[in-house]
């Protein structure tokens, strides 16, 4: 018996989704799997490496269609990363795919040394990242992955928001000549990327313009920032929304513009606030002499409350209502 999955959106948020005409896509995980298979079909040097994770990674069809381009290593993430690095060092476009919680903790030393320090063009894909596994508990959460990888030299860190960004992130990773880490979740996503927006690693995508407050978000939190911005607009507050899909290298120009042009900046992330996107944005602003009103929304340094991803998002204020309230309070403060 499993509890019914709680809804990620309140009735009001659902109404706003309707009002904005947001198109419902699928899980970024599924978009990743299909994109990878299409790329691999065209390039026999593209290899997926899995640690009993081809089911979790939606790569079973890949394995069936391209059995010679998938390597199974069993439940052994250290070996997964070492093998991925070795393949990459020998000319293969190797994608190591494993739940982000294990990939970036169990095998962190392999990521640091075999991939980043050795500078091989390996791609590490952290699936079901953040609190995607929700009620499975903290063993399965990756609220540390961005912090640890931010502290390691020579890795591009991508956190796509929707199917469009996910597809582009994987295409970028397949062509990269240096290490790349991509993380995303497994909930169905709404398309939030504006038509005509160009995905470029290291360049944030502006989803909405605004001057009172800027939401700087990434991954599965972005849609909530978009809804909050629309909700705030009804109350006369103009909110900007940036999808900071690249955590490293950071788009300092977009962050500084937000800090100069908006009265307040709110960062939103499915990650612990320590070492995450919020701290990266804060240090960028402060070092440039900017001090807008500022708030970091994410997971605090505490024993994470239990529940499904939707419960956790709501609990920690990652929702249309939560983010709107945070923005209103921040702007009202004298």
């Amino acid at each position: 018996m499993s509890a019914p999955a709680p809804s990620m959106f309140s009735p009001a948020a659902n109404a706003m989704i309707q009002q904005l005409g947001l198109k419902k896509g699928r899980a970024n995980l599924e978009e990743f799997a299909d994109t990878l298979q299409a790329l691999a079909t065209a390039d026999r040097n593209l290899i997926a490496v899995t640690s009993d994770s081809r089911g979790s990674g939606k790569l079973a069809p890949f394995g069936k269609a391209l059995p010679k381009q998938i390597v199974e290593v069993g439940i052994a993430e250290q070996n997964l990363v070492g093998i991925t690095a070795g393949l990459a060092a020998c000319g293969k476009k190797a994608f190591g795919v494993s739940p982000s919680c294990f990939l970036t903790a169990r095998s962190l030393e392999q990521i640091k040394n075999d991939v980043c320090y050795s500078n091989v063009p390996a791609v590490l894909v952290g699936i079901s990242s953040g609190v995607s596994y929700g009620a499975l508990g903290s063993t399965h959460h990756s609220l540390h992955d961005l912090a640890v990888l931010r502290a390691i030299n020579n890795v591009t860190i991508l956190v796509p928001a929707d199917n469009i960004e996910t597809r582009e992130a994987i295409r970028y990773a397949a062509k990269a000549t240096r290490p790349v880490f991509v993380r995303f979740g497994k909930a169905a996503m709404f398309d939030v990327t504006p038509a005509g927006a160009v995905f470029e690693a290291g360049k944030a995508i502006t989803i909405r313009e605004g001057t009172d407050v800027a939401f700087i978000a990434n991954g599965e939190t972005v849609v909530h920032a978009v809804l909050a911005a629309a909700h705030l607009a009804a109350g006369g507050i103009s909110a900007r929304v940036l999808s900071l899909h690249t955590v490293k290298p950071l788009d300092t120009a977009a962050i500084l513009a937000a800090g100069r042009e908006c009265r307040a900046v709110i960062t939103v992330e499915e990650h612990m606030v320590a070492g995450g996107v919020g701290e990266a944005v804060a240090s960028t602003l402060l070092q440039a002499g900017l001090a807008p009103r500022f708030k970091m929304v994410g997971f605090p340094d505490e024993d994470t409350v239990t529940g499904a991803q939707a419960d956790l998002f709501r609990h920690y204020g990652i929702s249309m209502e939560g983010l709107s309230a945070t923005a209103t309070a921040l702007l009202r403060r004298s």
Partner: protein
Amino acid sequence: MTDRDLVLKSFALRRRMLRLIYEAGAGHTGGGLSCLDILNILYNRVLKITPETVADPLRDRYVQSKGHCVEALYAVMSDRGYFPDADLDTVCHYRSYYVGHPTRKIRGMEMNTGALGHGLPICLGMALAAKMDGATTRVFTLLGDGELAEGSNWEAAMAAAHHKLDNLVAILDHNTLQITGHTRDVLSNEPLDEKWRAFGWEVRTVDGHDYAALTAALTTPPPAGKPLFILANTVKGKGVGFMENVGKWHHGVPSEAELAQALSELTAAEQKVREASV
């Protein structure tokens, strides 16, 4: 090169390694001396790599998992012409690429190693890549016996047999000592031959200082589908009497007097070989 030529070369390589460590003021002396004969044979007889083919996709690969014994590797590779001997005057210097563990910034180095338990998984990836390409490339790594306590080695041991990587060779520099003392006292890992056999590997036990035996073990192909494990019994500090099997030489740096004594010991031993086999 004959066995005799290589043995004669080994004395010069040991002297070069010791001078290098003395001048750098740091290094892994005992382990360098225990694996030097293995490296001498690999680079001068077994590996299909030359300084001219370091970028050839079909070259053999060597990844030194026990990266701390890089000084022996520096001596062997510089003698083989991968980089000038003068480069070794910069080991551990400010802004030098020649740090205390291998890095790819140095010509001919395949991977950055130094943390233990990394070489074997990397070599699996390399061996898999060669298999996918239908290449005859062989992939070699050198492990330490203390290093085998790292669990990643056993993840890789299992996977290598599963994937039938008969182009993969793991050489164990079995000198039975690690930084704290005897491996059997720190964390016993015997019986190693039975363990690796049980993991599906072809296991060959040899004297790690016997040039003919090591060469045969390295060059005779393993049965089809089996990765090859060479259990090379070695002596930590080999070739310098006062360093042999003495724990403090794990990363002991010789004083000027100790260096002089070690060099003269090696020169005397070399002279003996020259006289004996004329």
